């Protein structure tokens, strides 16, 4: 399981690298992407184990590093998002790429909203991020939701690498 967690964190790292590389050419600052967040959404929905929570925290730590802000915020938000998705996964049966895309989009938006709120708490009023960022957060969620199914496919593939086959009744 540790290997799976490492693989997912590495995958998230690659996604962040791709995201940074892409955003250099696309958007030009008008929009952004959060490609690592669908990984957390997937972990919350599909696995929900404690190892997945730690993995989510690991992904959050990566986001913290790349965000450049005070450490801990993204980690906290990643774990919170994981928890939320686990609750969603327990409440409703989430199947299909569209559902995953929608939840990834919503999760990304909420992740950004949470970061905005926490940053407002700790920042001086003149430096606090304003709510004018909400449209950008919405666009961020929308775009991330659009590419989330592809990330979900890779995550499913990684997940499949570590799943043991259940012995059937006939075996």
């Amino acid at each position, binding site marked *: 399981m540790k290997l799976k967690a490492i693989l997912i964190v590495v995958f998230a*790292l*690659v996604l*962040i*690298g*791709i995201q*940074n*590389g*892409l955003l*250099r*050419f696309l958007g030009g600052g008008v929009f952004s992407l959060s490609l690592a967040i669908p990984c957390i959404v997937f972990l919350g929905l599909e696995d929900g*184990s*404690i190892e997945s*929570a*730690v993995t989510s*925290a690991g992904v*959050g730590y*990566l986001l913290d*590093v*790349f965000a450049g*802000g*005070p*450490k*801990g*915020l993204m*980690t*906290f938000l990643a*774990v*919170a998002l*994981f*928890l939320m998705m686990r609750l969603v996964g327990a409440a409703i049966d989430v199947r299909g790429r569209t559902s995953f895309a929608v939840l990834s989009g919503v999760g990304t938006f909420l992740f950004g909203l949470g970061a905005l709120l*926490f940053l407002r708490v*700790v920042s001086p009023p003149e430096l606090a991020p304003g709510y004018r960022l909400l449209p950008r957060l919405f666009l961020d969620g929308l775009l991330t939701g659009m590419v989330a199914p592809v990330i979900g496919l890779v995550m499913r593939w990684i997940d499949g690498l570590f799943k043991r086959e259940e012995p059937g009744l006939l075996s």
Partner: protein
Amino acid sequence: MLALLKRYRELLLLLVLLVFSLVTYFAHAKRPSEPSRFDKLILTVTGPIEKSIGWTITGVLRTWQGYVGLRHSHQRAMDLNRQVIDLQVQQQELLQLKEENGRLRQLLGFTESAPERRYLGARVIGVRLDPKGLQILTLDHGSADGVAKMMPVVVAQGVVGRIQNVMPGISEILLLIDRNSSVATRVERSRARANVRGLNRPDVCALDYALRSEDMIEGDLLVTSGTDGIFPRGLPVGKVTNVKRNGRGLYQAADVVPVVDVTRLEEVLIITSAIAPPGASPPSAQNQRQEAVK
């Protein structure tokens, strides 16, 4: 207690993660710390990924832009090529016009040199220089334009021939080089008389009836004498070359290089003021001989 912890192990761990990260955040919020070595390592690891993404996108963009640029270049090259062809055609036309202008200027200068004559400019529209037949050029002017038989045809350089046949819209010149053509001439330098007869060769004619006693040397210019009733006097005909004086006989022999290259004629002048009487036949070799003897 242990059983309780075991039962809510996951929830507790989640809470620990949440609280720990939140505390960390608030602890660092006021005093942001420098990235650790591990953080720097993580940041460094993504560098190659970002670079490769950048190279890939830049490569794709360059390829695309290059492709689009090449397409435009190709189109532009096609347009320029077309323009070059058009310009070459125009240049060729202009060169032809320039050459034509030069020739016409010469003709004009020629006509102004003898204002008492009347000229009719004509364009050569057909060439028949068959060695087996008559040496004839066809002109685009005929009887409807006032052209008549026996009219002399000249260019600025000299004699071309005379009108042989006339139709309403076209006429034919019997060239100086035709073997049936004979033009009464004089040596410009010594005024010695002789006839220039064609040999059906564009580059050379024969000199007839030049008395042995006449002063004639190679390079002498022969001009029309005006005694044949066709050509006005003083028009250049050719240059004497290859003079041969035999030990006996009445005449000396020589070749004549025509001053007009009939193979390259495009425009000519028909002298219309010296119209021969209707039905007048060209001077025959016999008549010419008699005149030369006189």
